[in-house]
């Protein structure tokens, strides 16, 4: 099935690297993808990976339990650094979540066929990343059982949440995003759940998939309604791609702290979010296609396109960094200029240089097609970019808070073992969910892949 790759360097032929390897039929697509869920035995690799991820998740529960027992003092935060790892990780995770919606909604509306085989697991990744992200502000309050205070309900306190605070906007932005992403993901799953119901070997599997498929029979009327619903949800999700990280950037830019109070933050945060999101999609896609032999569906075309998106958004992020320097100098504001100077010469300058290396310099290799088509290189690149984006949030949060207006208000920040345990623990939560997802639901949208087969056949004839 996977025919020899055509000579790739001719521009005409390059365009023809398919989004679906030739020779596939409806049957073979469905068989291959549903087989991962229904017939494939649990391999040693899956079990080992799951065990590792699950033990990290257990570490997270210990870290969070200890946090709830002792309070946020177990973390390295203290005035002037009230935010620390919790907010760094929150922004990092929520950024990662952006690729899912971008791929599923915006690329859908733009009719980009290459989104088809990556949208399902990218959306799943979004949901899991939002779950990890949401955890941080919640436990950062120190009293997560009081979190309902943030919702506007008729309380006996006679007051409402502070609607002028970006932190409250965050609550709405993230919860809306989570809800719409979940709905979008689930609606997209319905035809596939019905396929699984029809193919499942055991009665209990049929019952579960059947209940989730909500009576899908694949009639023309079902498809008609399904497509309207999907289109509507895509329309709803599209503005969210831009709004969520814009609101997250307001957490910073609405404050008057030097280094935060700039208008470049919203676009630069959104670009950074998509940048890290695509990096994470690559980090997941590359092992996934290798482990389950999905190279026919997630082809070189997908990997290369994602690399191009990373290159483009990476350049926007680089522009953001540059603009930070420019604006500080152009404004003549001595606090802003001092902050830029602190980026290069302050106590956290190693983080800043590492960030420039990870986010700006290394990704320039993606201009080279050989690199874009080299799978190990892409994988390493995606890890580097994820690291870089984490460093970016660290630099933004820590340098500004430790170098406020008055030297008497300055401070230093270092994370404690509980900070690291919580952060690595959320990586465990994320991977655990991914491992479960890969075996419990079709990681690639079968119904949409069959549509691709149909297109391919039409083009052939």
């Amino acid at each position, binding site marked *: 099935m996977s025919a020899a790759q055509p000579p790739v360097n001719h521009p005409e032929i390059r365009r023809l690297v398919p989004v679906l390897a030739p020779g596939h039929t409806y049957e073979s697509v469905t068989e291959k993808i549903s087989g991962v869920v229904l017939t494939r035995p649990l391999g040693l690799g899956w079990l080992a990976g799951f065990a590792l991820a699950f033990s990290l998740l257990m570490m997270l529960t210990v870290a969070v339990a200890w946090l709830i027992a002792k309070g946020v003092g177990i973390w390295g935060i203290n005035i002037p650094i009230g935010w620390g790892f919790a907010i760094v990780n929150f922004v990092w995770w929520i950024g990662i979540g952006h690729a899912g919606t971008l791929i599923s909604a915006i690329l859908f509306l733009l009719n980009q066929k290459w989104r088809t085989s990556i949208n399902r697991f990218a959306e799943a990744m979004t949901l899991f990343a939002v779950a990890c992200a949401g955890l941080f502000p919640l436990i950062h309050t120190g009293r997560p059982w009081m979190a309902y205070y943030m919702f506007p*309900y*008729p*309380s*006996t*306190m*006679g*007051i409402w949440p502070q609607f002028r605070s970006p932190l409250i906007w965050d609550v709405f932005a993230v919860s809306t995003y989570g809800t719409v992403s979940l709905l979008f993901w689930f609606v997209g799953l319905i035809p596939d759940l019905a396929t699984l*119901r*029809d193919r499942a070997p055991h009665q209990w599997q*049929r*019952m579960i998939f*059947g*209940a989730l498929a*909500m*009576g899908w029979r694949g009639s023309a009327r079902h498809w008609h309604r399904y497509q309207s619903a999907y289109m509507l949800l895509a329309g709803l999700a599209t503005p969210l791609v831009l709004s969520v990280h814009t609101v997250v950037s307001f957490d910073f830019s609405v404050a008057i702290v030097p280094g935060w109070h700039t208008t470049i933050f919203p676009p630069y945060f959104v670009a950074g979010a998509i940048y890290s999101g695509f990096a994470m999609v690559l980090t997941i896609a590359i092992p996934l296609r290798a482990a389950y032999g999905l190279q026919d569906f997630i082809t070189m075309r997908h990997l290369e396109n994602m690399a191009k998106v990373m290159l483009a958004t990476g350049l926007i992020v680089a522009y953001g960094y540059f603009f930070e320097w420019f604006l500080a100098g152009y404004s003549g504001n001595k606090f802003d200029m001092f902050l830029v100077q602190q980026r290069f010469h302050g106590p956290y300058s190693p983080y800043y240089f590492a960030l420039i290396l990870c986010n700006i310099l290394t990704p320039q290799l993606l201009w080279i097609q050989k690199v874009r088509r080299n799978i190990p290189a892409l994988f390493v690149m995606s890890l580097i970019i994820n690291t870089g984006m984490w460093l970016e949030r660290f630099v933004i949060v820590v340098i500004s808070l430790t170098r406020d207006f008055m030297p008497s208000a300055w401070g230093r920040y270092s994370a404690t073992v509980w900070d690291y345990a919580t952060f690595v623990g959320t990586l465990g939560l994320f991977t655990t969910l991914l491992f479960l997802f890969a075996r419990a639901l079709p990681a690639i949208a079968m119904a949409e892949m069959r549509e691709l087969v149909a297109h391919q056949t039409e083009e052939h004839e």
Partner: protein
Amino acid sequence: MPQLFHRSANSTARISILAVVILATLGLTAVLGGVRSPNFTNQYLTRDQPIQFSHKHHAGDDGIDCRYCHAGVETSATAGIPPTKTCMNCHSVLFNNVGYLAPVRESYSTNTSIQWVKVHRLADYVYFNHSIHVNKGIGCSTCHGQVNQMPLMFQASTLQMQWCLDCHRDPEKNLREKKDIFNMDWKPAPDQAEKGKLLAAQYNVRSVRDLTSCSTCHR
């Protein structure tokens, strides 16, 4: 392949959507109503005290001024619970043999306090001060109700934050002249709107903005 689910599953699915909506509404109503009910706020609840002390008898029938016992109310944060000595000022002579006052005499002779049960319990994070309220024209009965008609003491108000704010957002409706502060039967006059404004100016009551600032009550 036979059908997985019986035909009734369709109805079950539809009804369960409705049920979720109804149950969620009922649940929310129960919770939001519950926290406002006396079960949660302890409003109107009388407590078992070591001695069944009657405010109705002392403040109402005998006409003893509030400050005779609650002496700190004009000068300090707490109104103050009187020492047994205050009781004995009268009860060394009056009803000095009555059985149900035995705990008072015992407290006096052994020099130990009577363990009254607190009725008005504010949250620890509220910095409440009696003197500022009394000195700025808020009478006892505005918060404590008509104590002169209570045989057993109970909490007349909810003591919830929205109840506090109800007055802090519009204090003029409750302002009294100095002579009426300890008058249990005071009712707002028909011209309270104008009177309140004058009194607010006279007492120098801070602006609503100040009165509703977080740190006015939470420090």
